[in-house]
């Protein structure tokens, strides 16, 4: 039975989780509290773990809650599949429409107007992340400046930049 509830809950989260990442967290919190799957301390842990491990927060939450709620790997598989399923269906439809209709004057016009908006969205993401949690001391700003320069001027691969920053963090702190 817990598998069915996990499936329904995470399907719902996947379906209504607009805006990704932190927007999804509040939905997860709601469902998890409703079923009593995690204590609030456990929920805080999963948020911290999600921030410190790679991968999308939604998938991290689904995997963690699925395992904790059911005590088995199957629970993780069910919850993770359920959170991905709505995106999968909707994105396939959108991709199909896009590839077919991108030359339609309305669709082409809308996509053209959305391009500068999307750039604004990404800029906002960077601004929103400029928090005291991420920038703890002057070293943070130095690391930020180096990462920015390496990416923009030296075209360094982002994965390499992350590894170097991790190494620097290890040496500094």
């Amino acid at each position: 039975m817990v598998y069915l509830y996990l499936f329904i809950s995470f399907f719902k989260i996947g379906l209504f989780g607009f805006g990704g990442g932190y927007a999804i967290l509040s939905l997860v919190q709601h469902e998890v509290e409703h079923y009593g799957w995690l204590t609030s301390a456990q929920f805080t842990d999963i948020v911290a773990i999600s921030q410190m491990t790679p991968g999308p927060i939604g998938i991290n939450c689904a995997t963690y809650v699925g395992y904790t709620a059911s005590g088995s790997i199957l629970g993780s598989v069910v919850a993770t599949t359920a959170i991905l399923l709505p995106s999968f269906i909707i994105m396939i439809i959108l991709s199909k429409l896009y590839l077919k209709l991108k030359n339609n004057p309305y669709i082409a016009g809308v996509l053209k107007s959305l391009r500068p908006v999307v750039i604004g969205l990404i800029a906002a993401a960077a601004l929103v992340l400029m928090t005291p949690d991420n920038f703890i001391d002057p070293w943070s700003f130095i690391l930020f400046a180096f990462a920015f320069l390496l990416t923009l001027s030296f075209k360094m691969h982002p994965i390499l930049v992350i590894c170097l920053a991790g190494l620097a963090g290890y040496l500094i702190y």
Partner: protein
Amino acid sequence: MQQYLQIFLTFFKIGAFTIGGGYAMIPIIQEEVVGRRKWIAQEEFLDLLALAQSAPGVLAANTAIFVGYKMRGIRGAITATLGAALPSFIIILLIAIFFSNYKDNPTVEAIFKGIRPAVVALIAAPLYKMAKSAKITYRTAIIPIATALLIWLVRISPIWIILITIVSTVAYIYFRDKDEQKQL
């Protein structure tokens, strides 16, 4: 078969190095899919981000589904999604099973203190290149700047901005075409 493997490995790499979720993976996807593999063009990448933003769910998965679908249909989409989701799945499962208290480990914490500001820089750095490919001029720069400020300071949901842009563009094209017909 080879291409399925390439799709899987590319998204596995993307999934394995996205820390902080969502937007943090955009520079990595861009580097891999647009820069290195040339699977999609730069403008198409911006369209893809708009689509991925408009659909619900995990941004990273949405992006993977689009690229996979464009390359190899439904099976390509499944391959890309599995690739993107698998690293988190494995890592989180191991944490849930074995070390639920690893976040208190000082070494792990130190490494992440270094990574966090770098991730913010990674998101900010490609903006200039994107603006050039979207042909943004000093006049139209108001759009991305206003969007960023509205989301950052006013905390408006990006969905509203996307919806307003869609509605106003459709209305603009509709009335423009009507005017042209009148003149004829």
